[in-house]
């Protein structure tokens, strides 16, 4: 993966495959603490301790129908976080869901760039209309904090059955995400 936003997309797909109906994504860009933190929380099927350990192994995949039993998504994300002097943790409870936290040292030379966060979020939100996304983007610096919150549950309610891939809705969501990403300095981080 060339950037962090592609890893994020991959992780969101894992949550969807685990049957999540609500996915909460928090991204914190903290200039003072020198950290870029991603917290992805879902209410999918979760994993027991054994599966959780295996999920971080590249030669494990939960996809039983597959001939090729390789699952690189989580191991690669973990590796990239750790390469930038960051950290990576997953906690999970069968039947309750999974929480994944990845931290990157913001000014580390080996940190991957954020990449196109807007396209990741737009694709995930529109590509999974039966899943609700709660998104929080937070930027912190010495004495200021800027945040952006976006809740698709609320938008779907207002739209009353109009699909999210309706042309004007695509534009609405894209522009909203754009504003939020710019206001929290996540565009070129």
């Amino acid at each position, binding site marked *: *993966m060339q950037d962090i936003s*592609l890893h994020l*997309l*991959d992780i969101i*797909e894992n949550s*969807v*495959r685990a049957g999540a109906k609500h996915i909460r994504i928090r991204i914190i860009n903290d200039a003072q603490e020198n950290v870029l933190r991603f917290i992805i929380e879902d209410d999918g099927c979760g994993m027991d301790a054994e599966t959780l350990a295996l999920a971080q192994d590249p030669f494990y995949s939960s*996809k039983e*129908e*597959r*001939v*090729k039993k390789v*699952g*690189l*998504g989580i191991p*690669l994300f973990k590796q990239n976080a750790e390469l930038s002097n960051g950290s990576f943790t997953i906690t999970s409870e069968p039947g309750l869901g999974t929480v994944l936290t990845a931290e990157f040292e913001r000014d580390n030379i080996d940190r991957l760039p954020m990449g*196109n966060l807007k*396209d*990741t979020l*737009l*694709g*995930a939100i*529109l*590509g*999974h*209309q039966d899943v609700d996304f709660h998104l929080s983007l937070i930027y912190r610096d010495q004495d200021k904090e800027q945040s952006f919150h976006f809740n698709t549950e609320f*938008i779907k309610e*207002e*739209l*009353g059955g*109009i*699909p999210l*891939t*309706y*042309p*004007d*809705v*695509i*534009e*609405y969501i*894209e*522009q*909203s995400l754009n*504003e939020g990403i710019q206001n929290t300095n996540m565009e070129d981080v």
Partner: protein
Amino acid sequence: MKTLADLKKIREKAQEEMKLRNSQVRIKIVVGMGTSGIAMGAREVMKTFLEEISQRNLTDVLVTQTGEKGLSSMEPVVDVIEEGKPTVTYGNMTPEKVRKVVVEHIVNGRIVSDYVVATGK
């Protein structure tokens, strides 16, 4: 700033249009978004479909994402599903190929056979 009032306007406009049509969704596009698909550019493929729908004002097309299907060597992979017709699977997709598929297949109903990797039921 995007506001609630904007959403209400969209809803009214869309409901008006849907009254004139019987079915809501004519054609469904499914973009494979597994790890290998993402690494090969599936996000850009998804984005291009959304752009085309928005620019061409295609109100009866639905785009969704799905996981891997075992066609890793042909990623990014896209399914086009139309009621009463066999599913068409396109492989090795790029934004340019997406634009062609939208014009030829989605708008004009002509399958772009050069990009097809499988057809199903």
